[in-house]
């Protein structure tokens, strides 16, 4: 099968759906002429000139206008530039987009997508490195997709482009350039269906995004020690695939949750809670969490490496949980 990059997968998803649906348009900072700050829109350069729009740095209107455009019959895809800057226009997201359908008693359909990069890169420091997906799982009213591979990126995004509910898509900066197999034929990936990226029998790691790759690396390293790790990529957090997680735990009896966002109050804590509520008797050890240390992402390379989790943190957690934690 041919291989394309994560950003090419996004570009293809957009291109295919924009050809079919004239109501799709996309806008944000640095996207039309530059192709996005991390090149995510490069596959779209020169195409659909009226429907790919550079905007002022006005986050509250970037997000709030997506709501207005959706109510007025369009299917907007608004870029948030960096996940950290969602907070600049956050009220339009949590107080407007995520509430209006509910507040109006179901009158509103909201076919809109907010998308953009999150996570660490090379020393981007505290204001350009955040992973904040948990917040959108916590506040009701938006679907959260957080793909880890080009295949998942394309399939999930195409589904998002058919959703009548608002969707937020987090694309990890370090993933844009990775390559992976993506079929030429059209396909869609439904929300709420996890993908078991590696089958194993000893321990389950539930993860997303960049940490899927770190977890797979950890699994390879531990395989040499005879430990068989199952890696479950949730792919979407709202909704999330409880059944696949619990089925995996019933098989392995050990669970690690691993994400780049902060360990304290991160979405992994929610997964861990649900599993102990619904599958406590299947667990042979306490559930362990892997996440960033509870400080901001620092600038200096050794400090960033220390704060953000990687495969070694996952390996340590797995060995600990297999010792009974």
């Amino acid at each position, binding site marked *: 099968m041919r291989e394309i990059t994560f950003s090419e997968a996004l570009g293809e998803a957009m291109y295919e759906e924009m050809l079919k649906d004239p109501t799709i348009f996309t806008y944000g900072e640095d996207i039309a002429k530059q192709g996005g700050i991390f090149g995510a829109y490069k596959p779209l350069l020169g195409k659909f000139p009226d429907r790919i729009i550079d*905007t002022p740095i006005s986050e509250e209107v970037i997000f709030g*206008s997506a709501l207005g*455009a959706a*109510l007025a019959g369009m299917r907007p895809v608004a870029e948030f530039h960096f996940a950290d800057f969602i907070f600049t226009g956050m*009220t339009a997201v949590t107080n407007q987009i995520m509430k209006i359908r509910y*507040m109006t008693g179901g*009158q*509103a359909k909201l076919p809109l997508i907010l998308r953009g990069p999150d996570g660490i890169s090379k020393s981007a420091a505290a204001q350009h490195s955040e992973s904040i997906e948990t917040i959108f799982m916590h506040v009701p009213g938006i679907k959260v997709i957080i793909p880890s591979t080009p295949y998942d990126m394309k399939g999930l995004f195409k589904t998002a482009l058919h959703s009548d509910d608002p969707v937020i898509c987090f694309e990890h900066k370090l993933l844009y350039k990775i390559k992976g197999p993506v079929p030429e034929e059209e396909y869609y990936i439904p929300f709420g269906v996890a993908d078991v990226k590696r089958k194993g029998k000893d321990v389950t790691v539930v993860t997303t995004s960049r940490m899927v790759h770190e977890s797979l690396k950890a699994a390879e390293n531990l395989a040499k020690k005879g430990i068989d790790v199952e890696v479950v990529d949730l792919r979407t957090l709202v909704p999330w695939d409880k059944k696949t997680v619990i089925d995996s735990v019933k098989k392995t009896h050990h669970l690690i949750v691993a994400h780049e966002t902060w360990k304290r109050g991160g979405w992994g804590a929610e997964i861990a809670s649900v599993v102990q509520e619904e599958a406590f008797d299947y667990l042979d050890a306490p559930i362990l969490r892997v996440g960033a240390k509870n400080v901001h992402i620092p600038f200096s390379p050794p400090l960033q490496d220390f704060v953000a989790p990687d495969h070694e943190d996952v390996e340590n957690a797995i060995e600990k949980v297999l010792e009974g934690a």
Partner: protein
Amino acid sequence: MDYSKEFLQGLYRTMVRIRAFDSKAEELFLEGKLPGFIHLYIGEEAIATGVMANLRKDDYITSTHRGHGHMIAKGADMKKMMAELYGKITGYCRGKGGSMHIADLSIGVLGANGEVAGGLPIASGAGMAIKLKKSDQVVVAFFGDGASNRGAFHEALNWCSVYKLPVIFVNENNQFASTERVQETTSVQNISDRAVSYSIPGVTIDGNDVIAVYEAVKSAVERARNGGGPTLIEAKTYRIKGHFVGDPTLYRKKKEVQEYWRIEPIGRFEKRLEKMGMLTDEEKEKIKSEAEKEVEEAVRFAEESPFPETATALQDLFVDDTGYDYY
């Protein structure tokens, strides 16, 4: 003033209907019949009325926390409005929104808004949609004087100017942001002066004169429909009632309010029409009694309607909630 009797009486009727609705809402709230809190449009009726007389059903508006008048003038059903104020299942939002989040997408009301200036980014997006669809609809974004001090106002004006969007920004300057006087919190004498920063026309008008509102908005709507872009209209008025029903209004003297009662828009227009021979005592009484009857029917409808079943609290979050956990 070269308007037909039918048109002028139509404006008068709309203002009277808004006043009747909000007077009743005030009474019901003080009797403890309405939950939450409500913000009355009393004294500001000329603005919604004059604006909406220029709009088609397929034009959009974004409203505010003080939005009953906008809804009624845009053609909303008073029964469903009143039922929503009561929190009943038959209300516009099935009891989930209340006074501050009332909306009727079928007549282009993209929602009242509990957030000051919250509607302005939404209106900007509706404007983008209209431009992309190449239709000739327009959007009116209502907002108060307090909203003009929020970033969203400035972002939205710049945005709509840059893209020449068909959005008319109608500022209802009722002199108070909650308890704070506009001149103590705002850097400009006239909010319309802020239009200069965004290279769009800005005008200040007498918001208690329904004809002045109608005419100013008429030319702004014509410009917008013809691709001329946004306009900022500041309609100066006065918030005769408190910020919310039950506001102790310690920030102003009763005498000041009494002065403004003398120039409230309905009485003024009534006198003008009478002088022109466009409104007889009989017609006046008929319009008023019809409005009161409509409100009474709305109250009866609301009171006879059931509260929502609790199970409905777990509905209406998503169109497709497959896999979503509500517990």
